[in-house]
């Protein structure tokens, strides 16, 4: 599916904006249209952070999304706030390490990943965000994993290119974790 209206929400400091940026950049590398829109609370630290990413084949109208068709929720308040807004049939990626309740709605495609655990397994807690992006792309392959890898490569300066690999590993781990929860067709696509 070539278009997506995604909201990523959580605490500041969870790498939300970066997750969104890499996804957006990947879409652009694929020649798609894409918008990335942040929204912060007032605090410099410890506030909430939201990021909206829209990807489409056509020029994008609203970068503001009221009813997302994809959601990544990184903490409990975000779950409470955004679950009700999701469009019917939307994908909901839940950061199981921080969200202590199951979703209430039955009309969503839910993937719950313990991103912190996955990242710890890689010995790199910072890449939890990429785990979740991987999970999202498993459920909704709006861009190729490969494009995200290119976006990451383009992001890091020469002296930090070694970080690309660990991020890509996190992506694939997330995708794999998601694949385990998804119906056959989608998981096939991830492989």
């Amino acid at each position, binding site marked *: 599916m070539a278009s997506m209206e995604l909201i990523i929400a959580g605490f500041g400091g969870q790498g939300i904006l970066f997750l969104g*940026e890499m996804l*957006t*950049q990947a879409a*652009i*590398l694929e*020649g*798609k*249209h*894409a*918008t*990335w*829109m*942040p929204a912060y609370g*007032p605090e410099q630290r410890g506030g909430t952070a939201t990021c909206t990413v829209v990807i489409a084949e056509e*020029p*994008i*109208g*609203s*970068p*503001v*999304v*009221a*009813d997302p068709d994809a959601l990544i929720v990184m903490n409990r308040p975000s779950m409470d706030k955004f679950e009700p807004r999701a469009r019917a049939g939307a994908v909901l990626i839940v950061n199981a390490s921080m969200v202590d309740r199951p979703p209430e709605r039955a009309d969503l495609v839910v993937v719950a990943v313990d991103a912190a655990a996955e990242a710890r397994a890689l010995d790199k807690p910072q890449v939890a965000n990429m785990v979740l992006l991987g999970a999202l792309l498993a459920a909704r392959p709006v861009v190729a994993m490969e494009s995200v890898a290119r976006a990451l490569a383009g992001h890091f300066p020469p002296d930090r290119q070694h970080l690309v690999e660990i991020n890509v590993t996190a992506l694939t781990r997330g995708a794999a974790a998601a694949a385990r929860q998804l119906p056959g067709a989608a998981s096939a696509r991830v492989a």
Partner: protein
Amino acid sequence: MATALTDRVLMKGNEAIAEAAIRAGVQAYFGYPITPQSEISEYMAAHLPEHGGAFLQAESEVAAINMVYGAAGAGARVMTSTSSPGISLMQEGLSYIVGSELPCVIINVMRGGPGLGNIAPSQADYFQATKSAGHGDGRNLVLAPSTIQEAADLTLLAFDLADRYRNPAMVLTDGITGQMMEPVAFREGPSLPREVPAWATTGAGDGPVRLINSIYLEPEALEAHNQRLQEKYRRMQVEVRSEAYLMDDAVVAVAAYGLTARIARTAVDRARAKGIRAGLLRPITVYPFPTQACADAAGQVAGILTVEMSAGQMVEDVRLAVEGRTPVRFYGRLGGVVPTPPEVLAQIERLLSEVKAR
């Protein structure tokens, strides 16, 4: 000029504006930090000096606009950027700039007001931007980008229009457009260095002295000066720009600019998907305002819905254009709340049923 989609870079609106200004050959930038536009200053601080331009953080917006005045009067391409409260503080300086006919570019990344308000996006400075440049009868040229690509393009255009008319040109945008990222491809600006205008006070040589000035003590002299300015504003009408989206067969039009216009565009698409023949009328210049385009639409559609992030400002210009020939309704969100496509769609449907009921 067509650019392959993949040649585009992902950039924040604020940064794209700054980069576009640098490519337009801006020679000096004076500004004071304020959210949600500080990235413009920061980008200029990092990059303008390497292009030989002068970056200076002023002690206030009042100082910034007067530095702009000085540099513009000395013949430089110059700009400042700020957000709503800062624009209020610049009103006196803007009035001097229009009075002295100095070209310069001002970026207003609007935020929620009144007062300190908040840092969320807004369109509530439309009147202030379009109706007068401070006190007196002066006017800004006002350009309202709807995408980041357009923010870059209109910034470049702003410099050219400013020079062409010896008038300040304002890019009127909002916190979301400033903060969001979208791919953008840059065009190069006018040939650099551009010629230093003959009227500029460059302190050069022993020719006749030059003067930058807005005082005309004799009423008759000030009237003549103002008539020249008014005549110039009439000439500016040729710069009017607007976009008509799906207007050809529209029975209902949405009028909106900037961020609101792209939201409305999605709403129009959704309306079309539901079989409603909606169209979008998008002013790109809000001063001069596309009066004719609105008037033409008035003759065609059953009603116009104006959508703004304000309590209803541009809608007055729409009404002035329409002169009662079709109903004009207004939908606005305030204080940093952004209208969503479903809301706008609901308003389109409401307008249609209202019109049919009559």
